[in-house]
């Protein structure tokens, strides 16, 4: 289903200046992968070499951090919105 992904200012340059990108996806992981395939410059900004989300990158579905849901396996519902937000709280280890 179509979901919207909101990008923070410093990532917009890698997405032709868009602040919101719409992708088709069933899970958060799929949505992020599709985003990174559409705009390849985003891949190394968001993901580690092993495919995890970088330590300081927080992914929210609506108001929830996916670390408190099922991570990249989190299933999306109609109308869900994904936010990519850098942590300025000193990273995250979980």
């Amino acid at each position, binding site marked *: 289903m179509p979901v919207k992904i*909101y*990008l*923070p*200012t*410093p*990532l917009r*340059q890698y997405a032709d200046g868009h*602040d919101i990108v719409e992708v088709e996806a069933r899970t958060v992981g799929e949505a992020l992968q599709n985003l990174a395939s559409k705009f390849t410059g985003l891949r190394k*900004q968001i993901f580690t070499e092993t495919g995890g989300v*970088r*330590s*300081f*990158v*927080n992914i929210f579905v609506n108001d929830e*951090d996916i670390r408190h849901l099922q991570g990249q396996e989190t299933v999306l519902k109609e109308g869900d919105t994904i*936010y990519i*937000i*850098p*942590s*300025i*709280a*000193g*990273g*995250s*280890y*979980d």
Partner: protein
Amino acid sequence: MVKGRGVVSLVGNTPMVRLSRLERPNGPKIYAKLEMLNPGGSVKDRPAVYMILDGVRRGLLTREKTILDATSGNTGVAYSMVAASLGYRVKMVVPANASRLKVAKMLSLGAEIVFTDPLEGMDGAIKKAVEIYESDPDMYFYPDQYSNPMNPRAHYETTGPEIMAQTGGRITHLIAGVGTSGTLAGTSQYLRERLPSVRIVEVQPEGEFHGIEGLKNMNGGMRPSLYREQIGDQLIRIPTEEAEETARKLLLKEGIPAGTSSGAALAAALRLSVDLDSGLIVVILPDGLQVGGEGVKRVRP
């Protein structure tokens, strides 16, 4: 010894410690300036005191006014602390992804907080602060840490002389990250005037998208008007992961609890030390480990 002027008189005069366990054998010495030991927990106590006292002296900050500024956290804690001790109100504009611990500290010190869109980062908070100020200029004292000359002045008059004295003038390299750039600008100006051969190393996050609180990649977004290119003799860019890893190393090998921007500055020092056979590197560690927020590592059985 009892200090008489309240918390303001406790700012500065932070200790310096040698990081022998992180030095390379037959390499330069590495000394760390422990700014997390300021009463507010960061280097930003210094400029906050200077900017507020300057506002009072110049009649810009009066009893009816509220201190207003944009902050990623530390300056807000510092303003809130100084304002509490001197009896002023504070309104801080903070991106909603700021450190929870620092937000909690500001609130407990009596600050009012206006949160801005985390997608817009610090630039969004700065724009909002300007908007609030312009909506009612008589109600606010807006020091603007990004342009206020009292910010570097604080470091010219305190951090610089402390480092000079603590190293007995033997410092060869100064390393610090830049956010407003006040720390590096003021400290380096003082040291260069006295030690013309001292090398200044500026540290920025690698990439505009990063997670190093307090630091700014100067290629993107709004540049602080205080910032000057070529502020350092050398610029080192550090990825967030390397900063986090180095902060962890500092914690586990030296027992020093420091924040990610400290990790970035120290990472630059470790890179630099590879090319040096001698010398005395001073690294400024701006704040402490963030525990109590989401940066807490869960211990697994």
